[in-house]
């Protein structure tokens, strides 16, 4: 009998919440310490996933399946494959880091904060492991509540409520349409095969007429595109990022956004492959607009957090472009880029958080010459910025290079336009870095800023390790995703080649 690692991962944080409830709310150190211990334990629990993961098979591993609601075909069904493995590990790695980052930052309602954090962790892991559409939907929605509270309660006083509600409603809007699509899919599968089930893997195989695929792809796609966020649906992101507390921004950027891209990989494309091919131009163009637009808007930002938020739009555009190439380098690059973005943007938000703790401002104009009082900080900031830009030798390069390679195979023009995004990224990041770190110290208050403490260095150590590791030897990670990606591409290739016009799709005619 195998240990149910995935269930432990999902439910251990919830048990941690029960433990936290019994602790004294006044003793912040104990609360933070216990949560840190719990999240570290969780990280240790997740390590066997990495070591015992068999990278030669595309099949689901560590599978657990129990009937939950049999008369409706709903089961508790979880498993891991190459797509979710890295994201799960990213989540468990980042949570202890986030707890450490709250040490000075969060000073009121610590207990509730830690409870939200643990609940969020449980929800995020649930989303990545769920293989039952109902279970997935439950986790997908449940996770909204703690994130909403994190932004709304501990966020920036001025606009936190606006940002929290906007975040909640935007995400809900997409997911409710997805719910209808899930139901349509469920009944279609039931009618086609005679068994009613929410089992995702079984649904992969079922033939769906194109006009149904068309609408369901859009419904699922809207939910995920809002989460990613893709270009016209991104407006919640700068607000949520800017108003959230540091840790909220880190988790939002590093993990929550990945749920969107993961959703495309896990649900949208394999479930509706013909529609996926059909929508390649639309989604690629949206991704390109995101890349260029996100970068240009970033350049103009005066607020550090907003700048990083818009850079996320640009980076996630790369991921989406890579996934929609349906080529080996494109998809693998997309997956690696998800991890990269989690590491480097997470680190960037932590950096901004640390500056904010010291100066209580995030305006670029308030800084300048910080490298003089804070040399260690400057070094770390430099590495992270370069990783975000995509300097060879660091992780960002690997992801972006693979994506551009994949895009070049699929469509040269896409690749060319996307490449300009890399240049823009260098512009806004380096310009920002120059204005914040270099030159004379222009503000008196900045002269005596303390450099990073040991705790703060410890926060960055694991992130920097992986930033360099992925940059220098990405095969460790690419290897894990290879079999799953190959299988995915084989599935997609089978569906290639149906040409459909829009009017056929609307009329419900089969191609």
């Amino acid at each position: 009998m195998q240990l149910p690692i995935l269930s432990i991962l999902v439910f251990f944080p919830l048990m941690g919440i029960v433990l936290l409830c019994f602790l004294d709310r006044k003793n912040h150190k104990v609360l933070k310490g216990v949560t840190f211990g719990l999240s570290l334990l969780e990280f240790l629990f997740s390590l066997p996933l990495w070591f015992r993961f068999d990278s030669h098979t595309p099949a689901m591993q560590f599978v657990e399946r129990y009937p939950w609601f049999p008369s409706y075909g709903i089961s508790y069904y979880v498993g891991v494959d190459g797509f979710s493995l890295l994201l799960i590990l990213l989540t468990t790695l980042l949570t202890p880091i986030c707890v450490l980052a709250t040490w000075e930052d969060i000073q009121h309602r610590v207990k509730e904060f830690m409870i939200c954090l643990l609940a969020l962790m449980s929800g995020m892991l649930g989303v990545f492991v769920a293989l039952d559409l109902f279970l997935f939907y439950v986790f997908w929605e449940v996770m909204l509540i703690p994130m909403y509270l994190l932004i709304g309660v501990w966020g920036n006083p001025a606009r936190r409520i606006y940002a929290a509600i906007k975040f909640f409603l935007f995400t809900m809007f997409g997911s409710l349409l997805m719910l209808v699509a899930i139901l349509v899919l469920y009944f279609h599968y039931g009618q086609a095969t005679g068994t009613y089930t929410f089992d995702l893997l079984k649904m992969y195989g079922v033939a769906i007429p194109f006009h149904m695929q068309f609408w369901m792809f859009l419904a699922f796609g809207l939910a995920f595109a809002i989460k990613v966020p893709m270009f016209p649906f991104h407006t919640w992101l700068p607000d949520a990022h800017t108003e959230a507390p540091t840790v909220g921004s880190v988790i939002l950027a590093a993990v929550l956004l990945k749920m969107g891209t993961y959703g495309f990989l896990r649900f949208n494309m394999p479930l509706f492959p013909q529609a996926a091919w059909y929508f390649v131009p639309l989604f690629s163009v949206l991704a390109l607009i995101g890349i260029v637009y996100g970068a240009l808007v970033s350049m103009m930002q005066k607020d550090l957090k907003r700048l990083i938020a818009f850079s996320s739009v640009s980076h996630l555009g790369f991921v989406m472009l890579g996934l929609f190439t349906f080529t080996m380098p494109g998809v693998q690059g997309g997956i690696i880029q998800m991890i990269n973005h989690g590491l480097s943007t997470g680190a960037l938000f932590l950096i901004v958080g640390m500056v904010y703790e010291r100066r209580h401002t995030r305006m670029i104009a308030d800084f300048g010459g910080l490298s003089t009082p804070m040399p260690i900080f400057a070094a770390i900031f430099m590495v992270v910025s370069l990783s975000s830009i995509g300097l060879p030798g660091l992780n960002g390069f690997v992801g972006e290079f693979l994506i551009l390679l994949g895009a070049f195979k699929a469509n040269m023009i896409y690749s060319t336009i996307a490449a300009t995004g890399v240049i823009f990224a260098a512009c806004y990041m380096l310009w920002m870095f120059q204005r914040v770190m270099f030159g004379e110290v222009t503000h008196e208050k900045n002269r005596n800023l303390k450099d990073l403490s040991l705790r703060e260095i410890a926060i960055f150590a694991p992130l920097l390790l992986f930033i360099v590791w992925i940059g220098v030897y990405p095969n460790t990670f690419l290897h894990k995703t290879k079999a799953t990606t190959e299988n995915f591409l084989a599935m997609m290739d089978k569906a290639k080649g149906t040409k459909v016009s829009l009017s056929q799709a609307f009329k419900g005619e089969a191609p």
Partner: protein
Amino acid sequence: MTLTIPSFTLSNIGPWLTLTGAAILILLVDALSPKGRKAYFPQLALLGLAVALLQTFCLWNKRGLDFARMVYIDNFALFFYAVFILGTALTVLMSRHYLEDYGKDLGEYYALLLFATLGMMLMAAGAHLIMIFLGLEVMSIAVYVLAGLLREDPKSNEAALKYLVLGAFSSAFLLFGMAMLYGAAGGTLYLDDLASRLAAGGALTQPLTLLALALFIVGFGFKVASVPFHMWTPDVYEGAPTSVTAFMAVGVKAAAFAAFARIFFLAFPAFKVDWVMVLWVLAVATMTLGNVVAIAQTNIKRMLAYSSIAHAGYLLVALVAMNQLGAVSLLYYLLAYTLMNLGAFGVVILVGRKKDSYLSIYDYSGLGFQHPALGAAMALFMFALAGIPPTAGFVGKFYIFSAAVQAGYIWLAIIGVMNSLVSVFYYLRITVLMYMKPAEADLGPVAFTPALTTVLLVTAVGVLLIGIFPGFLYNAAVNSVKIFPGL
């Protein structure tokens, strides 16, 4: 002339007898006990309800007609018995604390609650339209009186009067509809005869039946508070004592839906095309109006009133679907709604204090951190009403929209989920106030009485439990709706 009394088995209506007995006993104790002494009315009422529940369980899976084909004994009715009893018991528990503030902790209050419950049971089990009408009147008259219980309070008076006048009007519509049907069906009002008679009646009786159908929809539409027959709801809900509002929102609605579903599924399947279309429109209008107007409310009772209108809309969707899943979702949703709505009203009573002096939604500012347990409970009920997992509210909506999709009403499902989105906004606002706004003033102590604590515990645990493990109830509900032909 000889008069034969048909044979009957009293145990088939055991729950009715128990409740009637308990109500009369309470009235007697009230009359005979010396003035000023605190009597054991709630305990007596709860005892009666417990015995009735036990009898309901004993009858489970029994199937038949009794009392000269006047009463159904089947799982559909029994399921509703359980819902009514649960709703009434929770209402009884939350009443004393509230009524004592007003000096209205009277025997007749509890007796009337029990009588109203009896009326609901009659409606759920009636096999003859006159039985259903009797049930409706027994229930309604008791609730008219309850709404006006605070007779020194002009708002309560207004509520009672409005409810009485409009209620009588709608009863008349219903009765008129029955008269039409009597003619159309050739002199029968037995539900199990109606379908075949109406189908056999031919074209001549069709207009008459359609008119009857329309009148039925008006009558029941009033009781379930569906648009455009909802006008009374906000005023009555706001003016009535909070515990009565809670009772009305869950009990009366559930009873009306029970009779609604039984009549339409049993008597009018042949006219499905006609009434499904009307109900489709009503469902959309009801959901949309309820949700949109609820956004503008600042009084928590009025907000919950509009939310209850919206929920009537969701339930109409279940009727429109008219398949097995639709009927199941109706039962499940009504039970879930009973739990989450009564829980929310329990919090409203606790926060309201001192003769309802804190009914504005802004009085909830900062509640989440000043009274963590109360805040968490309210947040749970709000998320449940909004239909967010893992609560009963989510599973209920999931069933309802599944039923709509299965029956091919995908647009209705889309309109429904979009309405949930609108509703998220105003439910979320309560949590925003509770957790994200500072308290305007110190809220002061909240008097947690054991009874109210029990209500909150039962409802909160129930909402979560049947949200996470919906299987058992689903099977019970499937079992209950098997009585309808074709489901």
